[in-house]
Protein backbone atom coordinates (compact mmCIF):
# COMPACT_ATOMS: atom_id res chain seq x y z
CA UNK A 1 0.00 0.00 0.00
CA UNK A 2 1.38 3.39 -0.87
CA UNK A 3 0.26 6.79 0.31
CA UNK A 4 -0.15 9.80 -1.95
CA UNK A 5 0.87 13.29 -0.94
CA UNK A 6 -2.81 14.13 -0.51
CA UNK A 7 -3.21 11.18 1.89
CA UNK A 8 -0.33 12.54 3.91
CA UNK A 9 -1.81 16.03 4.04
CA UNK A 10 -5.17 14.64 5.10
CA UNK A 11 -3.68 12.50 7.86
CA UNK A 12 -1.67 15.47 9.05
CA UNK A 13 -4.80 17.60 9.26
CA UNK A 14 -6.68 14.91 11.21
CA UNK A 15 -3.77 14.69 13.64
CA UNK A 16 -3.41 18.48 13.73
CA UNK A 17 0.22 18.26 12.61
CA UNK A 18 1.81 20.97 10.58
CA UNK A 19 3.84 19.66 7.68
CA UNK A 20 6.22 21.89 5.74
CA UNK A 21 5.24 22.55 2.15
CA UNK A 22 8.10 20.56 0.70
CA UNK A 23 7.97 17.71 3.21
CA UNK A 24 4.90 15.84 1.98
CA UNK A 25 6.73 13.73 -0.69
CA UNK A 26 9.31 12.55 1.86
CA UNK A 27 6.60 11.62 4.42
CA UNK A 28 4.63 9.84 1.71
CA UNK A 29 7.71 7.79 0.84
CA UNK A 30 8.65 6.97 4.43
CA UNK A 31 5.14 6.15 5.61
CA UNK A 32 4.56 3.98 2.55
CA UNK A 33 7.72 2.06 3.40
CA UNK A 34 6.44 1.46 6.94
CA UNK A 35 3.11 0.21 5.61
CA UNK A 36 4.91 -2.07 3.15
CA UNK A 37 6.93 -3.49 6.01
CA UNK A 38 3.79 -4.24 8.05
CA UNK A 39 2.04 -5.59 4.99
CA UNK A 40 4.26 -8.66 5.08
CA UNK A 41 1.99 -9.94 7.83
CA UNK A 42 -0.75 -10.25 5.23
CA UNK A 43 0.96 -13.47 4.11
CA UNK A 44 -0.04 -15.21 7.35
CA UNK A 45 -3.29 -17.16 7.31
CA UNK A 46 -5.37 -15.66 10.15
CA UNK A 47 -8.72 -17.21 9.24
CA UNK A 48 -8.88 -19.15 12.51
CA UNK A 49 -7.43 -16.42 14.74
CA UNK A 50 -9.67 -14.24 16.92
CA UNK A 51 -8.66 -10.59 16.58
CA UNK A 52 -6.73 -9.52 19.65
CA UNK A 53 -8.24 -6.62 21.57
CA UNK A 54 -5.54 -6.47 24.21
CA UNK A 55 -2.10 -8.04 24.63
CA UNK A 56 -2.88 -9.11 28.22
CA UNK A 57 -4.94 -12.23 28.60
CA UNK A 58 -7.09 -10.71 31.31
CA UNK A 59 -10.58 -9.38 31.86
CA UNK A 60 -11.73 -5.88 32.76
CA UNK A 61 -12.28 -5.37 36.50
CA UNK A 62 -15.41 -3.44 37.37
CA UNK A 63 -15.64 -0.60 39.87
CA UNK A 64 -18.55 -0.08 42.28
CA UNK A 65 -20.72 2.92 41.38
CA UNK A 66 -19.70 5.37 44.10
CA UNK A 67 -18.63 9.00 44.03
CA UNK A 68 -15.05 9.05 45.28
CA UNK A 69 -13.76 12.24 43.68
CA UNK A 70 -14.57 15.62 45.20
CA UNK A 71 -14.23 19.09 43.75
CA UNK A 72 -10.59 19.81 42.90
CA UNK A 73 -11.29 22.57 40.42
CA UNK A 74 -9.01 25.10 42.05
CA UNK A 75 -6.04 22.74 41.86
CA UNK A 76 -6.69 21.78 38.23
CA UNK A 77 -7.34 25.34 37.13
CA UNK A 78 -4.19 26.62 38.79
CA UNK A 79 -2.22 25.08 35.91
CA UNK A 80 -4.67 26.06 33.13
CA UNK A 81 -3.57 28.86 30.78
CA UNK A 82 -6.85 30.76 31.12
CA UNK A 83 -9.99 30.33 33.16
CA UNK A 84 -13.04 32.47 33.81
CA UNK A 85 -16.16 31.87 35.90
CA UNK A 86 -15.02 28.31 36.49
CA UNK A 87 -14.65 27.57 32.77
CA UNK A 88 -11.49 26.66 30.90
CA UNK A 89 -10.99 29.20 28.12
CA UNK A 90 -9.76 27.98 24.74
CA UNK A 91 -9.37 29.55 21.31
CA UNK A 92 -12.85 29.99 19.91
CA UNK A 93 -14.33 26.99 18.15
CA UNK A 94 -17.48 27.22 16.08
CA UNK A 95 -18.55 24.60 13.60
Amino acid at each position, binding site marked *: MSLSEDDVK*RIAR*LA*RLEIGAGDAPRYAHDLSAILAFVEQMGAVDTAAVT*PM*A*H*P*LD*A*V*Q*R*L*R*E*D*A*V*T*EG*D*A*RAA*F*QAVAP*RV*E*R*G*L*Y*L*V*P*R*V*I*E
Partner: protein
Amino acid sequence: MEWEAVIGLETHVQLLTKSKIFSGASTAYGAEPNTQACAVDLGLPGVLPVLNREAVRLAVKLGLAIGATIQPRSVFARKNYFYPDLPKGYQISQYELPIVSDGRLEILPEGAAAKTVTIVRAHLEEDAGKSLHEDFHGMSGIDLNRAGTPLLEIVTAPDLRSAAEAVAYLKKLHTLVRYLEVSDGNMQEGSFRCDANVSVRPRGHEKLGTRTELKNLNSFRFVERAIEFEIERQIEVLEGGGTIAQETRLYDPDRHETRSMRSKEEAYDYRYFPDPDLLPVVLDEAFIEAVRGTLPELPDARRERFARDYGLSAYEAEVLTASRELADYYEEAVRASGNAKLSAHFVMGDILGALNKEGREISAAPVGPALLGGLIRRIDDNTISGKLAKQVFESMWAGEGDADAVIAKKGLRQITDSGAIEQAVDQVLAANPQQVEQFRAGKDKVLGFLVGQIMKATQGKANPAQVNELLLKKLKG
Protein backbone atom coordinates in the same frame (compact mmCIF):
# COMPACT_ATOMS: atom_id res chain seq x y z
CA MET B 1 -42.69 10.30 -8.82
CA GLU B 2 -43.70 8.85 -5.50
CA TRP B 3 -40.98 8.91 -2.86
CA GLU B 4 -40.36 6.82 0.20
CA ALA B 5 -38.43 8.05 3.21
CA VAL B 6 -35.99 5.75 5.00
CA ILE B 7 -35.04 6.69 8.55
CA GLY B 8 -32.68 5.21 11.13
CA LEU B 9 -32.25 6.63 14.62
CA GLU B 10 -29.33 6.84 17.01
CA THR B 11 -30.37 7.65 20.54
CA HIS B 12 -27.97 8.60 23.30
CA VAL B 13 -29.40 7.61 26.65
CA GLN B 14 -27.68 8.84 29.79
CA LEU B 15 -27.42 5.98 32.25
CA LEU B 16 -28.68 6.52 35.77
CA THR B 17 -25.45 6.10 37.71
CA LYS B 18 -24.09 8.13 40.61
CA SER B 19 -20.57 8.29 39.25
CA LYS B 20 -19.05 8.49 35.79
CA ILE B 21 -18.38 5.57 33.51
CA PHE B 22 -14.61 5.53 34.07
CA SER B 23 -14.07 7.72 37.14
CA GLY B 24 -15.41 8.39 40.61
CA ALA B 25 -16.62 11.92 39.83
CA SER B 26 -20.31 12.70 40.35
CA THR B 27 -22.78 12.77 37.45
CA ALA B 28 -25.30 15.04 39.25
CA TYR B 29 -26.82 17.62 36.94
CA GLY B 30 -26.47 21.36 37.38
CA ALA B 31 -23.28 21.67 39.43
CA GLU B 32 -20.94 24.66 39.15
CA PRO B 33 -18.73 24.33 36.03
CA ASN B 34 -15.82 21.90 36.33
CA THR B 35 -16.48 20.98 39.96
CA GLN B 36 -17.33 17.41 38.91
CA ALA B 37 -14.46 16.84 36.51
CA CYS B 38 -11.62 14.83 38.03
CA ALA B 39 -8.17 13.98 36.66
CA VAL B 40 -9.55 11.04 34.61
CA ASP B 41 -12.28 13.20 33.05
CA LEU B 42 -9.73 15.90 32.25
CA GLY B 43 -7.50 13.36 30.52
CA LEU B 44 -4.47 14.28 32.61
CA PRO B 45 -1.35 12.21 31.90
CA GLY B 46 -0.93 9.03 33.88
CA VAL B 47 -4.56 8.36 34.76
CA LEU B 48 -6.38 5.13 33.95
CA PRO B 49 -10.07 4.56 33.35
CA VAL B 50 -11.84 1.94 35.48
CA LEU B 51 -15.24 0.74 34.28
CA ASN B 52 -18.35 1.37 36.39
CA ARG B 53 -20.21 -1.87 37.12
CA GLU B 54 -23.57 -0.12 37.28
CA ALA B 55 -23.18 1.29 33.76
CA VAL B 56 -22.60 -2.26 32.50
CA ARG B 57 -25.55 -3.57 34.48
CA LEU B 58 -27.91 -0.90 33.08
CA ALA B 59 -26.77 -1.58 29.50
CA VAL B 60 -27.46 -5.28 30.00
CA LYS B 61 -30.85 -4.50 31.53
CA LEU B 62 -31.94 -2.50 28.50
CA GLY B 63 -30.55 -5.20 26.22
CA LEU B 64 -32.57 -7.91 27.94
CA ALA B 65 -35.73 -5.80 27.81
CA ILE B 66 -35.50 -5.49 24.01
CA GLY B 67 -34.80 -9.18 23.53
CA ALA B 68 -31.26 -8.49 22.34
CA THR B 69 -28.13 -10.59 22.44
CA ILE B 70 -25.89 -9.66 25.36
CA GLN B 71 -22.35 -10.12 24.13
CA PRO B 72 -20.32 -12.25 26.55
CA ARG B 73 -17.27 -10.28 25.43
CA SER B 74 -17.25 -6.63 24.38
CA VAL B 75 -14.39 -4.24 23.74
CA PHE B 76 -13.86 -0.52 24.27
CA ALA B 77 -12.30 1.45 21.44
CA ARG B 78 -10.95 4.95 20.99
CA LYS B 79 -12.82 7.23 18.62
CA ASN B 80 -10.33 9.92 17.68
CA TYR B 81 -11.18 13.53 16.95
CA PHE B 82 -10.11 16.92 18.18
CA TYR B 83 -12.49 19.21 19.97
CA PRO B 84 -11.84 21.25 23.11
CA ASP B 85 -14.63 19.61 25.09
CA LEU B 86 -12.93 16.23 24.53
CA PRO B 87 -9.71 16.64 26.51
CA LYS B 88 -8.10 13.29 25.67
CA GLY B 89 -8.44 13.79 21.91
CA TYR B 90 -10.54 10.63 21.76
CA GLN B 91 -13.85 9.40 23.10
CA ILE B 92 -13.92 5.96 24.69
CA SER B 93 -16.70 4.07 22.94
CA GLN B 94 -17.40 0.60 21.60
CA TYR B 95 -17.01 -0.12 17.93
CA GLU B 96 -16.62 -3.62 16.53
CA LEU B 97 -17.81 -5.49 19.61
CA PRO B 98 -20.67 -3.62 21.34
CA ILE B 99 -22.19 -4.96 24.55
CA VAL B 100 -25.72 -5.31 23.11
CA SER B 101 -26.74 -6.36 19.61
CA ASP B 102 -29.79 -7.42 17.63
CA GLY B 103 -32.78 -6.33 19.70
CA ARG B 104 -36.24 -5.20 18.73
CA LEU B 105 -38.97 -2.84 19.80
CA GLU B 106 -42.56 -3.02 18.65
CA ILE B 107 -44.16 0.32 17.91
CA LEU B 108 -47.74 1.38 17.30
CA PRO B 109 -47.69 4.64 15.34
CA GLU B 110 -50.86 6.69 15.58
CA GLY B 111 -53.36 5.52 13.02
CA ALA B 112 -51.02 2.95 11.49
CA ALA B 113 -50.24 -0.73 11.80
CA ALA B 114 -47.94 -2.11 14.48
CA LYS B 115 -44.35 -2.53 13.37
CA THR B 116 -41.23 -4.13 14.74
CA VAL B 117 -38.12 -1.95 14.68
CA THR B 118 -34.77 -3.73 14.69
CA ILE B 119 -32.18 -2.37 17.07
CA VAL B 120 -28.88 -3.24 15.47
CA ARG B 121 -26.74 -2.46 18.48
CA ALA B 122 -26.42 -0.56 21.74
CA HIS B 123 -22.98 0.37 22.96
CA LEU B 124 -21.48 1.98 26.03
CA GLU B 125 -19.54 5.21 25.71
CA GLU B 126 -18.54 8.33 27.59
CA ASP B 127 -20.11 11.73 26.99
CA ALA B 128 -18.03 14.79 26.07
CA GLY B 129 -17.97 18.11 27.94
CA LYS B 130 -19.84 21.24 26.99
CA SER B 131 -18.59 24.21 24.97
CA LEU B 132 -20.02 27.66 25.59
CA HIS B 133 -19.60 29.91 22.61
CA GLU B 134 -20.95 33.09 24.11
CA ASP B 135 -18.35 35.78 24.17
CA PHE B 136 -15.43 35.20 26.48
CA HIS B 137 -13.23 37.88 24.88
CA GLY B 138 -13.29 35.98 21.59
CA MET B 139 -12.64 32.64 23.30
CA SER B 140 -14.81 29.62 24.09
CA GLY B 141 -15.55 28.44 27.62
CA ILE B 142 -15.31 24.73 28.44
CA ASP B 143 -17.23 22.92 31.19
CA LEU B 144 -16.12 19.31 31.65
CA ASN B 145 -18.69 18.25 34.26
CA ARG B 146 -20.48 16.17 31.64
CA ALA B 147 -17.27 14.61 30.31
CA GLY B 148 -17.23 10.91 31.19
CA THR B 149 -20.94 10.62 31.92
CA PRO B 150 -22.06 7.12 30.91
CA LEU B 151 -24.14 6.87 27.73
CA LEU B 152 -25.77 4.00 25.95
CA GLU B 153 -26.05 4.70 22.23
CA ILE B 154 -28.95 2.74 20.78
CA VAL B 155 -28.91 2.34 17.00
CA THR B 156 -31.84 1.16 14.87
CA ALA B 157 -31.77 -0.39 11.43
CA PRO B 158 -33.14 1.92 8.69
CA ASP B 159 -36.59 0.47 9.39
CA LEU B 160 -38.64 3.64 9.85
CA ARG B 161 -40.59 5.17 6.97
CA SER B 162 -42.03 8.41 8.33
CA ALA B 163 -41.53 11.09 10.96
CA ALA B 164 -44.55 9.70 12.80
CA GLU B 165 -42.94 6.26 13.02
CA ALA B 166 -39.70 7.81 14.25
CA VAL B 167 -41.57 9.63 17.01
CA ALA B 168 -43.53 6.49 17.94
CA TYR B 169 -40.25 4.60 18.28
CA LEU B 170 -38.64 7.32 20.39
CA LYS B 171 -41.61 7.62 22.70
CA LYS B 172 -41.63 3.86 23.15
CA LEU B 173 -37.91 3.79 23.90
CA HIS B 174 -38.28 6.75 26.25
CA THR B 175 -41.04 4.99 28.20
CA LEU B 176 -38.97 1.82 28.34
CA VAL B 177 -35.75 3.36 29.69
CA ARG B 178 -37.73 5.10 32.40
CA TYR B 179 -39.66 1.94 33.27
CA LEU B 180 -36.41 0.08 33.61
CA GLU B 181 -34.84 2.91 35.61
CA VAL B 182 -31.97 2.77 33.17
CA SER B 183 -32.22 6.55 32.60
CA ASP B 184 -34.27 9.45 33.91
CA GLY B 185 -34.98 10.30 30.24
CA ASN B 186 -34.88 14.01 30.98
CA MET B 187 -34.74 15.63 27.55
CA GLN B 188 -34.19 19.18 28.79
CA GLU B 189 -31.10 18.06 30.66
CA GLY B 190 -29.86 16.05 27.69
CA SER B 191 -30.38 12.59 29.20
CA PHE B 192 -32.18 11.41 26.05
CA ARG B 193 -30.81 12.79 22.77
CA CYS B 194 -31.52 11.72 19.26
CA ASP B 195 -29.82 11.90 15.85
CA ALA B 196 -31.68 10.83 12.73
CA ASN B 197 -30.31 9.42 9.48
CA VAL B 198 -32.70 10.34 6.70
CA SER B 199 -32.78 9.45 3.02
CA VAL B 200 -35.43 9.13 0.33
CA ARG B 201 -35.79 6.74 -2.62
CA PRO B 202 -38.39 6.19 -5.32
CA ARG B 203 -41.09 3.97 -3.84
CA GLY B 204 -40.49 0.34 -4.74
CA HIS B 205 -36.73 0.72 -5.14
CA GLU B 206 -34.42 -1.40 -3.02
CA LYS B 207 -31.33 0.77 -3.16
CA LEU B 208 -31.04 3.37 -0.40
CA GLY B 209 -30.59 7.02 -1.31
CA THR B 210 -27.75 9.15 0.06
CA ARG B 211 -28.47 9.99 3.66
CA THR B 212 -27.99 13.05 5.79
CA GLU B 213 -27.61 12.98 9.55
CA LEU B 214 -29.77 15.36 11.57
CA LYS B 215 -28.51 16.54 14.92
CA ASN B 216 -29.88 18.64 17.74
CA LEU B 217 -33.25 16.92 18.00
CA ASN B 218 -33.93 17.43 21.67
CA SER B 219 -37.69 17.06 21.81
CA PHE B 220 -40.23 14.73 20.22
CA ARG B 221 -41.74 17.68 18.41
CA PHE B 222 -38.41 18.76 16.94
CA VAL B 223 -37.71 15.19 15.81
CA GLU B 224 -40.97 15.11 13.93
CA ARG B 225 -40.63 18.55 12.38
CA ALA B 226 -36.95 18.19 11.48
CA ILE B 227 -37.47 14.83 9.76
CA GLU B 228 -40.51 16.11 7.89
CA PHE B 229 -38.59 19.14 6.74
CA GLU B 230 -35.58 17.08 5.68
CA ILE B 231 -37.69 14.59 3.68
CA GLU B 232 -39.32 17.48 1.81
CA ARG B 233 -35.97 19.15 1.21
CA GLN B 234 -34.39 16.00 -0.22
CA ILE B 235 -37.36 15.31 -2.51
CA GLU B 236 -37.20 18.88 -3.76
CA VAL B 237 -33.47 18.64 -4.48
CA LEU B 238 -33.85 15.31 -6.31
CA GLU B 239 -36.88 16.39 -8.32
CA GLY B 240 -34.97 19.51 -9.32
CA GLY B 241 -32.30 17.24 -10.80
CA GLY B 242 -29.82 17.74 -7.97
CA THR B 243 -28.04 15.22 -5.74
CA ILE B 244 -27.99 14.84 -1.96
CA ALA B 245 -24.66 15.43 -0.24
CA GLN B 246 -23.85 13.03 2.58
CA GLU B 247 -23.45 15.45 5.45
CA THR B 248 -24.46 16.36 8.96
CA ARG B 249 -27.25 18.90 9.24
CA LEU B 250 -28.37 20.86 12.24
CA TYR B 251 -32.04 21.48 12.93
CA ASP B 252 -32.93 25.09 13.73
CA PRO B 253 -36.27 25.08 15.54
CA ASP B 254 -36.64 28.86 15.33
CA ARG B 255 -36.47 28.94 11.54
CA HIS B 256 -37.85 25.41 11.10
CA GLU B 257 -35.11 24.31 8.70
CA THR B 258 -32.03 22.09 8.61
CA ARG B 259 -28.63 23.52 7.78
CA SER B 260 -25.40 21.91 6.67
CA MET B 261 -23.02 21.62 9.61
CA ARG B 262 -19.84 20.07 8.30
CA SER B 263 -18.63 20.27 4.75
CA LYS B 264 -17.46 17.14 2.96
CA GLU B 265 -13.83 18.20 2.99
CA GLU B 266 -13.89 18.18 6.77
CA ALA B 267 -15.25 14.63 6.85
CA TYR B 268 -14.11 12.90 9.99
CA ASP B 269 -12.08 9.78 10.05
CA TYR B 270 -12.31 8.52 13.59
CA ARG B 271 -9.50 5.95 13.29
CA TYR B 272 -11.06 3.59 15.83
CA PHE B 273 -8.78 1.14 17.59
CA PRO B 274 -9.11 -0.94 20.77
CA ASP B 275 -8.34 1.16 23.86
CA PRO B 276 -5.18 -0.29 25.41
CA ASP B 277 -6.18 1.22 28.79
CA LEU B 278 -9.18 -1.08 29.07
CA LEU B 279 -9.39 -4.85 28.97
CA PRO B 280 -12.20 -6.74 27.24
CA VAL B 281 -15.43 -6.76 29.25
CA VAL B 282 -16.44 -10.35 29.89
CA LEU B 283 -19.89 -11.09 31.29
CA ASP B 284 -20.75 -14.50 32.61
CA GLU B 285 -24.15 -16.13 32.62
CA ALA B 286 -24.58 -15.47 36.36
CA PHE B 287 -24.18 -11.70 35.90
CA ILE B 288 -26.66 -11.60 33.02
CA GLU B 289 -29.20 -13.77 34.86
CA ALA B 290 -28.90 -11.62 37.99
CA VAL B 291 -29.77 -8.58 35.88
CA ARG B 292 -32.66 -10.45 34.26
CA GLY B 293 -34.01 -11.04 37.76
CA THR B 294 -34.30 -7.28 38.29
CA LEU B 295 -36.43 -6.63 35.19
CA PRO B 296 -39.81 -5.16 36.12
CA GLU B 297 -43.00 -5.99 34.25
CA LEU B 298 -42.42 -4.32 30.87
CA PRO B 299 -44.77 -1.66 29.50
CA ASP B 300 -46.32 -3.85 26.77
CA ALA B 301 -47.03 -6.69 29.18
CA ARG B 302 -48.47 -4.28 31.70
CA ARG B 303 -50.71 -2.64 29.11
CA GLU B 304 -52.13 -6.00 28.11
CA ARG B 305 -52.66 -6.99 31.73
CA PHE B 306 -54.46 -3.70 32.48
CA ALA B 307 -56.83 -4.23 29.56
CA ARG B 308 -57.48 -7.83 30.55
CA ASP B 309 -57.67 -7.66 34.35
CA TYR B 310 -59.22 -4.23 34.81
CA GLY B 311 -61.55 -4.30 31.81
CA LEU B 312 -59.99 -1.17 30.31
CA SER B 313 -60.14 -0.16 26.67
CA ALA B 314 -56.93 -0.36 24.63
CA TYR B 315 -56.72 3.42 24.77
CA GLU B 316 -57.17 3.59 28.55
CA ALA B 317 -54.57 0.88 29.08
CA GLU B 318 -52.14 2.73 26.84
CA VAL B 319 -52.54 6.05 28.64
CA LEU B 320 -52.32 4.50 32.10
CA THR B 321 -49.09 2.65 31.33
CA ALA B 322 -47.35 5.63 29.70
CA SER B 323 -44.99 5.77 32.65
CA ARG B 324 -44.19 3.38 35.44
CA GLU B 325 -45.12 5.98 38.07
CA LEU B 326 -48.54 6.56 36.52
CA ALA B 327 -49.21 2.83 36.19
CA ASP B 328 -48.15 2.30 39.82
CA TYR B 329 -50.38 5.15 40.91
CA TYR B 330 -53.34 3.67 39.07
CA GLU B 331 -52.85 0.21 40.51
CA GLU B 332 -52.60 1.58 44.04
CA ALA B 333 -55.79 3.57 43.47
CA VAL B 334 -57.54 0.40 42.27
CA ARG B 335 -56.38 -1.42 45.41
CA ALA B 336 -57.55 1.43 47.64
CA SER B 337 -60.90 1.92 45.91
CA GLY B 338 -61.81 -1.55 44.72
CA ASN B 339 -63.16 -0.01 41.51
CA ALA B 340 -60.94 -0.26 38.43
CA LYS B 341 -63.21 1.56 36.00
CA LEU B 342 -63.86 4.58 38.22
CA SER B 343 -60.18 4.73 39.14
CA ALA B 344 -59.28 4.86 35.45
CA HIS B 345 -61.90 7.54 34.93
CA PHE B 346 -60.50 9.73 37.71
CA VAL B 347 -56.82 9.19 36.94
CA MET B 348 -57.22 9.92 33.23
CA GLY B 349 -59.63 12.79 33.71
CA ASP B 350 -59.26 14.75 36.93
CA ILE B 351 -55.75 13.74 37.96
CA LEU B 352 -53.98 14.01 34.61
CA GLY B 353 -55.99 17.13 33.79
CA ALA B 354 -54.95 18.90 36.98
CA LEU B 355 -51.32 17.78 36.64
CA ASN B 356 -51.20 18.94 33.07
CA LYS B 357 -52.63 22.32 33.97
CA GLU B 358 -50.04 22.81 36.70
CA GLY B 359 -47.16 21.23 34.78
CA ARG B 360 -46.54 18.69 37.52
CA GLU B 361 -45.49 15.05 37.54
CA ILE B 362 -47.66 12.29 38.95
CA SER B 363 -45.23 11.86 41.86
CA ALA B 364 -46.07 15.44 42.92
CA ALA B 365 -49.87 14.98 42.83
CA PRO B 366 -51.35 16.41 46.05
CA VAL B 367 -54.01 13.70 45.92
CA GLY B 368 -52.20 10.37 46.23
CA PRO B 369 -53.68 7.00 45.24
CA ALA B 370 -54.87 6.19 48.76
CA LEU B 371 -56.75 9.51 48.98
CA LEU B 372 -58.26 9.01 45.54
CA GLY B 373 -59.31 5.50 46.53
CA GLY B 374 -61.09 6.97 49.57
CA LEU B 375 -63.05 9.33 47.35
CA ILE B 376 -64.07 6.58 44.95
CA ARG B 377 -65.29 4.42 47.83
CA ARG B 378 -67.62 7.25 48.86
CA ILE B 379 -69.11 7.29 45.36
CA ASP B 380 -69.50 3.54 45.37
CA ASP B 381 -71.26 3.47 48.74
CA ASN B 382 -73.59 6.30 47.68
CA THR B 383 -72.29 8.81 50.22
CA ILE B 384 -71.85 11.32 47.40
CA SER B 385 -73.01 11.50 43.82
CA GLY B 386 -70.55 11.40 40.94
CA LYS B 387 -71.31 15.01 40.27
CA LEU B 388 -70.45 16.16 43.78
CA ALA B 389 -67.36 13.96 43.73
CA LYS B 390 -65.80 16.44 41.33
CA GLN B 391 -66.28 19.21 43.86
CA VAL B 392 -64.85 17.02 46.63
CA PHE B 393 -61.89 16.16 44.42
CA GLU B 394 -61.10 19.81 43.82
CA SER B 395 -61.07 20.51 47.55
CA MET B 396 -58.85 17.49 48.16
CA TRP B 397 -56.49 18.73 45.44
CA ALA B 398 -56.37 22.09 47.23
CA GLY B 399 -55.22 20.28 50.35
CA GLU B 400 -58.42 20.45 52.39
CA GLY B 401 -58.11 16.89 53.66
CA ASP B 402 -59.36 13.46 52.66
CA ALA B 403 -62.74 12.71 51.09
CA ASP B 404 -64.56 12.11 54.38
CA ALA B 405 -63.23 15.34 55.89
CA VAL B 406 -64.25 17.41 52.87
CA ILE B 407 -67.70 15.79 52.65
CA ALA B 408 -68.33 16.45 56.33
CA LYS B 409 -66.97 19.98 56.27
CA LYS B 410 -68.98 21.04 53.23
CA GLY B 411 -72.07 19.05 54.09
CA LEU B 412 -72.02 17.26 50.77
CA ARG B 413 -73.25 13.93 52.04
CA GLN B 414 -75.79 12.58 49.62
CA ILE B 415 -79.41 12.55 50.79
CA THR B 416 -80.57 8.95 50.76
CA ASP B 417 -83.30 9.47 53.34
CA SER B 418 -86.38 8.85 51.22
CA GLY B 419 -88.50 11.10 53.44
CA ALA B 420 -86.34 14.11 52.67
CA ILE B 421 -86.22 13.30 48.98
CA GLU B 422 -89.97 12.84 48.86
CA GLN B 423 -90.43 16.24 50.41
CA ALA B 424 -88.29 17.82 47.70
CA VAL B 425 -90.16 15.93 44.98
CA ASP B 426 -93.52 17.10 46.31
CA GLN B 427 -92.31 20.70 46.45
CA VAL B 428 -91.12 20.67 42.89
CA LEU B 429 -94.25 18.99 41.58
CA ALA B 430 -96.42 21.54 43.35
CA ALA B 431 -94.39 24.43 41.93
CA ASN B 432 -94.54 23.15 38.34
CA PRO B 433 -98.11 22.05 37.57
CA GLN B 434 -97.74 22.89 33.90
CA GLN B 435 -94.82 20.49 33.41
CA VAL B 436 -96.65 17.80 35.33
CA GLU B 437 -99.58 18.18 32.92
CA GLN B 438 -97.25 17.98 29.94
CA PHE B 439 -95.69 14.78 31.23
CA ARG B 440 -99.05 13.19 31.78
CA ALA B 441 -99.98 14.20 28.24
CA GLY B 442 -97.04 12.04 27.05
CA LYS B 443 -94.23 14.57 26.85
CA ASP B 444 -91.47 12.51 28.48
CA LYS B 445 -88.86 15.17 27.94
CA VAL B 446 -90.01 17.31 30.87
CA LEU B 447 -88.85 14.55 33.21
CA GLY B 448 -85.29 15.78 32.87
CA PHE B 449 -86.37 19.29 33.76
CA LEU B 450 -88.15 18.09 36.88
CA VAL B 451 -85.18 15.97 38.01
CA GLY B 452 -82.98 19.02 37.53
CA GLN B 453 -85.28 21.13 39.72
CA ILE B 454 -85.24 18.53 42.47
CA MET B 455 -81.43 18.26 42.36
CA LYS B 456 -81.25 22.01 42.53
CA ALA B 457 -83.59 22.09 45.51
CA THR B 458 -81.31 19.64 47.33
CA GLN B 459 -78.09 21.39 46.26
CA GLY B 460 -77.24 18.35 44.19
CA LYS B 461 -77.15 16.12 47.20
CA ALA B 462 -80.15 13.90 46.50
CA ASN B 463 -79.38 10.40 45.28
CA PRO B 464 -80.28 10.61 41.57
CA ALA B 465 -81.51 7.02 41.34
CA GLN B 466 -83.89 7.54 44.24
CA VAL B 467 -85.09 10.85 42.80
CA ASN B 468 -85.95 9.20 39.51
CA GLU B 469 -87.74 6.35 41.12
CA LEU B 470 -89.83 8.53 43.44
CA LEU B 471 -90.63 11.05 40.76
CA LEU B 472 -91.92 8.46 38.33
CA LYS B 473 -93.98 6.83 41.04
CA LYS B 474 -95.62 10.15 41.91
CA LEU B 475 -96.24 11.22 38.34
CA LYS B 476 -97.75 7.92 37.35
CA GLY B 477 -99.50 7.30 40.62
